[in-house]
């Protein structure tokens, strides 16, 4: 029999025992809904975690250091001895790193001590330069005021604890000015030719800079690996670079190569488009002769964790579907008993065993398809309800809303496909039992 005829007959048969078949289909729908709800939760939480983490810049960043040195405080370990010859991490290297494929941003870590003057009072603190990409890091979501208007703006964002030192009413600080006093590094004439002679050096000159406070942020932004956790006064990175403020590692530079006017960076953060590109880029950076370190493994662990998490959720979600499968088997076996005579008539009229088998198979498939479609819808509703409930709770806690359940297209298609497949598997036994019925006995059945 042709599939269209078969489907017509199957649907007609299902409509005959509409209550029983609807309940069976509902059972499948509940099973699929629980599976979809569980997996949508898994997917949603993974998306939430991944987007938060990728915004944080921890997993798409490579921390680059000159190979001959060790990072501050013992920092990242030196790379293998077999790697290419060491070279200074200077502007030329920075440009070269920027030109690497898939690299979105290369920036130094600029941090220096400062004395802030506000309302005529001095406050000692640490200034940190923030790259433009920090805007998307998520750390500034829900901040007071706003992020820097541009990368060149003479503006500052204060960490809230520091802001409270200046004025407990932190909101009132926004729009006001403060003065940052810092030490500018100026090259000595002896090394002005930039030859990098060993006897070169620099002098330190006190300077002042007026900055407008534009925002106060609660959390310490951790922009990129080795972030600016200790920075309590944040300024645009471009502004920080133009200040040429003397940094902690400058003294070491003097001892090493004396490049007074051409400071080498103690470290650079290289950011790539996606965390998956980190490994390849890190290898390239190492090949260029630098030390490189990334948090790729942590991101991998996260993926492994969510894979296991999704698997467990999927197993729990599938339990209801497994029960629904028994419902399908039961319904079809009952149908065989009731339609015994009809099966006999079909066979007498020329239906092959295969036709009878396929008819029951299609009936199971139709129930699976209908159950799958309704189940996905119910599952989506459950996910939406969970997200809604969570957001109501978060709103009460003054936290920004999140989407904890996501039903991507692959989940929709996968769940419906899985439902049909499971239903077909459930139909296997009844279908083969129906096909094996002896037509003579079936016709005699009252």
């Amino acid at each position, binding site marked *: *029999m*042709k599939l269209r*005829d078969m489907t017509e*007959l199957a649907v*007609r048969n299902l409509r*005959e025992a509409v209550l029983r078949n609807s309940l069976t289909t509902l059972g499948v729908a509940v099973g699929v809904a629980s599976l979809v709800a569980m997996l949508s939760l898994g997917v949603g939480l993974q998306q939430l975690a991944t987007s938060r983490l990728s915004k944080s810049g921890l997993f798409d960043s490579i921390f680059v250091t000159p190979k001959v040195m060790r990072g501050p405080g013992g920092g990242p370990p030196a790379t293998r001895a077999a790697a290419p010859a060491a070279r200074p991490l200077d502007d030329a290297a920075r440009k070269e790193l920027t030109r690497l494929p898939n690299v979105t941003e290369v920036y130094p870590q600029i941090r220096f001590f400062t004395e802030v003057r506000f309302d005529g009072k001095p406050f000692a603190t640490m200034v940190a330069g923030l790259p433009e990409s920090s805007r998307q890091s998520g750390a500034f979501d829900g901040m007071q005021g706003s992020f820097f208007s541009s990368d060149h703006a003479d503006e500052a964002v204060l960490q809230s604890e520091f802001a409270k030192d200046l004025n407990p009413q932190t909101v009132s600080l926004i729009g006001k000015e403060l003065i940052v006093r810092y030490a500018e590094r100026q090259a000595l004439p002896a090394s002005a030719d930039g030859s990098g002679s060993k006897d070169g050096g620099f002098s330190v000159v006190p300077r002042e800079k007026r900055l407008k406070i534009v925002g106060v942020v609660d959390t310490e932004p951790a922009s990129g690996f080795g972030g600016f956790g200790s920075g309590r006064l944040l300024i645009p990175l471009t502004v920080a670079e133009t200040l040429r403020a003397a940094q902690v590692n400058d003294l070491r530079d003097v001892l090493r190569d004396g490049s007074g006017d051409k400071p080498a960076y103690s470290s650079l953060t290289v950011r790539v488009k996606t965390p998956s590109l980190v490994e390849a880029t890190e290898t390239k950076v190492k090949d260029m002769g630098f030390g490189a370190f990334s948090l790729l493994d942590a991101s991998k662990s996260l993926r492994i964790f969510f894979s296991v998490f999704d698997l467990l959720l999927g197993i729990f979600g599938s339990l209801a579907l497994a029960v629904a499968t028994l419902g399908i088997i039961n319904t079809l076996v009952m149908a065989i008993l009731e339609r015994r*005579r*009809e099966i*006999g*008539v*079909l*066979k*007498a*009229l*020329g*239906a*092959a*065993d*295969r*036709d009878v088998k396929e008819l029951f198979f299609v009936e199971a498939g139709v129930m699976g398809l209908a159950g799958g479609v309704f189940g996905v819808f119910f599952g989506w509703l459950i996910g939406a309800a969970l997200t809604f409930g969570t957001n109501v709770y978060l709103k009460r806690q003054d936290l920004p809303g999140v989407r904890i359940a996501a039903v991507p297209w692959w989940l929709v298609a996968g769940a419906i496909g899985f439902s049909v497949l499971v239903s077909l598997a459930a139909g296997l036994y009844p279908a083969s039992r129906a096909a094996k019925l002896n*037509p*003579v006995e079936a*016709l005699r059945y009252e």
Partner: protein
Amino acid sequence: MGTDTAIGIERVSRHYLMGQTAIRAVDDVSLTVPKGEFLALLGSSGSGKSTLLNLIAGLDRPTSGAIVVGGRNLAELSSLVLARYRRETVGMVFQSFNLLPRMTLEENVELPLRLAEVERTERAARVRQALEHVRLTKRGGHRPSELSGGEQQRTAIARALVNQPRILLADEPTGNLDSATGEAILTLLREIQTNLGMTIVMVTHERNLAEKFADRLATMGDGKLLSAQATAGYRAEVTR
């Protein structure tokens, strides 16, 4: 078997095991049905006539012997080929009509065409033609429960005819009908047999009707063929 033979039954037996007891439902029966004959299988209950009909219909397989139709021994056909045989070569009519209750007459008659994968465009015409044969064109949209017994049996005959089979097998077609309706059904069968040149094998226990309408009577008892003899003939009956 000659070219004029529709059905050749050669030493056919069908034995069952009922518990420890072997039942010889059909026991070494040989019979030849020529093309275009109306054969009536007579016998009391349990004589084996229905079993023999089921064997000819390809619904059952003989324990031994051969049933040859169109040069093929049904006993040797695969179940798939046997299903095609039931679809294309024979049409069946039952005592209890066996129409599917949730389908209309037209849909019931269309069922064998669906099984034979006949194109939809062709089906409507074939269904109409079959219903015309049994004079039920006006009731095509009705369900079996809305019809009389005679009308239901006529529908079943239309369903048996729709695939244009060469052989029509009828198992007690008048068993559930009153005598007048039963006679009308047999008149219809006879008419179809004459008009379409079909071979008909009918199981019945009503000797009177069999003698009146069939060309030959084969009488069975205890699984054996007791006798096979020509009747005075339908035509003779009509002319008398």
